[in-house]
């Protein structure tokens, strides 16, 4: 009974944590049977199209909808005037600001929503949208956040005029949103004043867009007779959408059902609530028919949720040996025309204060100013936790800069400054407490795997050869991520704590259904949550059905973004499973007529300690839960858990990149990229590797080509996939992955979350490598994107291209 082979077989059948279980969501996708929002078709469904502003800043003099309304097949044309009586022409953003649903007298960014045309199909709606005549009076445009703060800068938000406080405190200027400061300013100043060495670097983290392959959209269906509203929506946070819709519409949340069907990638783009959703909902309520709204790619890239756009200045104070004494950071954050960041309420700059990185920096001070410009709103976490990519980029660039100034090897200077293993839990000068880490062995493993010394020797040889057609760059990044938002003591969105949830019901036959407050967008939750439950309850993963995304059935949760599913909902899954297991123990004790303490849990059964063969399997226990429970116990076997994490989790990694730059064309070839990630306990290695490949590729995209540029008139110049870089199979490098395991001490299963680390960590690694290729020529920093053209410009400037 207890042979090794038997154990192995039972373990195999369980498919619990740690195995590369194949994904349960795949069969529908590979057969074209996914159910994405645009696949949904309802009887009587109409189609809505937005009329958008060609101007980045203009007063609306007149909107004439008569021709559009007269067009055959058109059911409604909504403008702000129509929404005013319902008080729906403005809506709250997740950041405590308001945003116009349909432009109210003026537009403040190009492609802003002006009118919503509802017609019998998408062709008719598009025709009618062109018949809506809008008269604009163009106003001066400001797209540079520094110019936006000039005393005579155009007023972007007329609705906020005279308000000198916003939802994050005092506003210093009519285009100013907030100032957020953290750390000890005075002490940091003193350390800088006395420092042996200081370095300073300005850097721009350009505006980029998450660009999931599926754009945003929804189908809103209001049942006039029942008075309930169902919305199928591409949302990473369906429960939050329900609350927002409830607040806006005054329909009780019990009458609102939000369903996130299959989602074609989110990457932060699908967290917010967008005007199109609200317009479709209103149209459905008014018309009593289902209304579908699906973004075009151009609408997606130019209106729903950009990321980054941080103008940062970093400074380090250190001693001559490269030991960092202080970090000082000043940021001008361009939030566009409305502050629609998806940050926890208390953190207008998100978790940017993780910017002391993996280093033991005793003093730090950060100041962030949010600014309005005539650009589209957003500021979302594009495959990262809130503003963590920016923070990690900053500190990694700064430590490289310091290494260059002092002539210390970049790996060596990192080792000198790493937080040591025995310092965890580690309190940072900016108020975070890192849970666990072991940085030096991770870096050493990468240096050995890549033969760092060999690479340096090769590089030295190339640098010495004036005829070398290529420049060789080596990039290093040793990042610490912060994910799993978050503890409700300091994290909430619209006042709702950022917990997450799980509900498990075990059926009489021993199979189970589990529902979570999160929603998968490709992460494979259906597969991995079942693995956690399998290990914790002994129910084989194949017998567990998981369900997410339907607010009518799932317990309330804050959704999936910021790598929070595993650290938060994953913990709820583990805890709910443990509640089931404890009840199962009671039942097993009753069945075996022993005390609960005499039992031990063994993979898929409870057995009596020291009595071989005397055991009850989970299957038997599940059956008994419905007919033979101990006296006084309620029937059934189910549990709910709402998990409020005591802290964030802090995954980390060490990355190295080698690339070769053709100095005559600027073409950059990534030769090798080695990514070592430590995400704590590993639930499914196959899925982890897939997530890392994806994150690295998105990091590659951002570092090497993505940017949402604007011209002076506020035209978005990267509005289609013709102009916005998404790497293909041809330019994407091959990735090498590795790992160490440092579990989180406060998480029930020790898992930390992984999907975003590769994005956060790879971007500074690419910049590090590109700058390194030029560092012997005096270059200390280059702004992204490192496209061939821009790299070639650098070669030109240095006079090394022919």
């Amino acid at each position, binding site marked *: 009974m207890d042979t090794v082979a038997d154990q192995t077989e039972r373990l195999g059948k369980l498919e619990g944590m740690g195995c590369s279980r194949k994904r349960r969501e795949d069969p529908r996708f590979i057969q074209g049977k996914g159910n994405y929002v645009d696949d949904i078709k309802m009887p009587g469904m109409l189609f809505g199209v937005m*009329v*958008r*502003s*060609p*101007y*980045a800043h203009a007063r609306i003099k007149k909107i004439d909808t008569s021709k559009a309304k007269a067009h055959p097949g058109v059911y409604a044309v909504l403008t702000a005037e129509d929404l005013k009586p319902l008080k729906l022409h403005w809506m709250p953003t997740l950041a405590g600001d308001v945003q116009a649903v349909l432009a109210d007298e003026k537009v403040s960014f*190009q492609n802003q929503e002006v009118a919503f045309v509802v017609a019998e199909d998408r062709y008719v709606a598009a025709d009618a*949208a*062109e*018949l*809506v*005549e*809008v008269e*604009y009076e*163009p106003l001066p445009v400001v797209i540079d956040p520094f110019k936006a703060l000039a005393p005579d800068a155009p007023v972007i938000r007329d609705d906020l005029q005279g308000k000198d406080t916003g939802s994050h405190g005092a506003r210093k200027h009519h285009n100013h949103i907030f100032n957020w400061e953290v750390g000890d300013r005075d002490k940091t100043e003193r350390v800088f004043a006395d420092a042996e060495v200081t370095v300073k670097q300005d850097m721009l983290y350009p505006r980029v867009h998450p660009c999931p392959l599926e754009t945003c959209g929804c189908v809103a269906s209001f049942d006039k007779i029942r008075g309930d509203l169902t919305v199928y929506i591409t949302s990473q946070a369906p429960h939050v959408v329900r609350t927002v819709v409830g607040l806006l519409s005054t329909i009780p949340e019990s009458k609102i059902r939000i369903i996130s069907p299959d989602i074609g990638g989110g990457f932060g783009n699908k967290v917010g609530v967008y005007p199109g959703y609200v317009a479709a909902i209103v149209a459905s309520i008014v018309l009593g028919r289902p209304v579908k709204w699906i973004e075009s790619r*151009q609408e997606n890239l*130019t209106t729903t949720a950009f990321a980054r756009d941080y103008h940062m200045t970093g400074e380090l104070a250190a001693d001559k040996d490269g030991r960092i004494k202080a970090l000082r950071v000043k940021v001008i954050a361009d939030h566009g025309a409305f502050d629609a960041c998806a940050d926890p309420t208390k953190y207008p700059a998100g978790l940017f204060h993780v910017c002391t990185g993996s280093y033991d920096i005793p003093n730090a001070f950060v100041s962030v100013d949010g600014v309005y410009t005539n650009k589209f709103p957003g500021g979302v976490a594009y495959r990262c936790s809130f503003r963590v990519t920016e923070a990690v980029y900053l500190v990694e660039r700064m430590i490289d800069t310091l290494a260059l100034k002092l002539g210390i090897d970049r790996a060596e200077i990192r080792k000198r400054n790493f937080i040591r293993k025995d310092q965890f839990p580690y309190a940072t000068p900016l108020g975070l407490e890192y849970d666990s880490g072991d940085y030096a062995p991770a870096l050493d493993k990468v240096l050995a795997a890549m033969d760092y010394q060999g690479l340096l020797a090769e590089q030295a040889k190339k640098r010495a050869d004036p005829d070398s057609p290529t420049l060789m760059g080596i990039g290093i990044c040793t990042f610490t991520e912060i994910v799993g938002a978050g503890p409700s003591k300091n994290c909430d969105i619209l006042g709702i704590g950022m917990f997450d949830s799980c509900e498990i019901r075990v059926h009489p036959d021993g199979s189970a259904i589990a529902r979570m407050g999160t929603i998968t967008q490709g992460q494979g939750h259906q597969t991995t949550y079942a693995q956690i439950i399998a290990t914790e309850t002994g129910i084989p993963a194949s017998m567990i059905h998981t369900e997410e995304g339907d607010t009518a059935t799932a317990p309330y949760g804050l959704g999936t973004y910021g790598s929070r599913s595993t650290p938060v909902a994953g913990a709820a899954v583990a805890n709910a499973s443990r509640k089931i297991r404890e009840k199962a123990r009671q039942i097993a004790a009753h069945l075996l007529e022993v005390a609960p303490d005499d039992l031990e849990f063994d993979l898929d059964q409870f057995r009596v300690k020291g009595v071989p063969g005397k055991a009850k399997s989970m299957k038997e226990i599940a059956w008994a839960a419905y007919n033979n429970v101990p006296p006084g116990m309620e029937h059934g076997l189910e549990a709910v858990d709402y998990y409020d994490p005591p802290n964030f989790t802090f995954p980390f990694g060490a990355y190295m990149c080698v690339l070769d730059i053709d100095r005559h*064309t600027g073409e950059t070839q990534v030769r090798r990229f080695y990514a070592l990630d430590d995400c704590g306990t590993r639930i499914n290695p196959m899925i982890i590797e897939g997530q890392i490949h994806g994150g690295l590729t998105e990091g590659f995209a951002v570092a090497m080509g993505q940017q949402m540029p604007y*011209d*002076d*008139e*506020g*035209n*978005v*110049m990267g*509005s*289609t996939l013709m102009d916005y870089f998404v790497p293909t199979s041809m330019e994407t490098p091959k990735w090498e992955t590795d790992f160490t395991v440092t579990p989180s001490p406060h998480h029930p299963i020790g898992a930390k979350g992984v999907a975003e680390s590769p994005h956060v960590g790879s971007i500074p690694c690419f910049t590090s490598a590109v700058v390194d290729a030029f560092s012997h020529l005096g270059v200390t920093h280059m702004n992204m994107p490192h496209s061939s*053209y821009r790299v*070639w410009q650098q070669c030109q400037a240095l006079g090394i291209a022919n």
Partner: protein
Amino acid sequence: MKVELEKSHALAVPADIAWRVLQNIESVASCMPGATITERVDDANYKGTVTVRVGPATVSFKGDIEVKDIDANKRELRLVGKGSDTSGQSGASMDLLAWVQEGDAAHCQLVGRSEVTVTGKVANFGGRMMGTVSDQILKQFFDNFSALVAASAAQQGGVAAAEETVVRPAHELNALSLFWAIVKDFFRKLFSPNKAG
């Protein structure tokens, strides 16, 4: 986005005749490929349309033209046009300064300096073609204007009469010839030695 252009064109007529033609806004507009004056509000204000057709797509701009300044001494004219396309997806404005430079008794030079600003879809999609497209439009304008001026000189009967005899330019940009010109221009630029990168 903004495109600034300055072009000059030799005309085989005395400066006075060219200047006379230039002051007649309706005639000048008729030389603009695809342009029509639809309404004369007063001496200085006009309403008009410009239709540009490239392939299957037609963009029709509707807007106002204002004569900002006519300086007979300098033979100089300043026009400001503003409009948006009829589908409301693009906006455009133009600030044009045109003047006639005296040559010899039988020749003069028409010089135009314009700043064209476009917003919306035209800028989003057509941004990188803007310079070339404007260039081609101006070339066609100069050709038409030369013909009008030449006819006007021959007739001596005033601009209106001249207009009757000149083959009126098509009220739509000639898509094929415009396209061909853009392609030629593109290749010329590609192979020109001073092209960076």
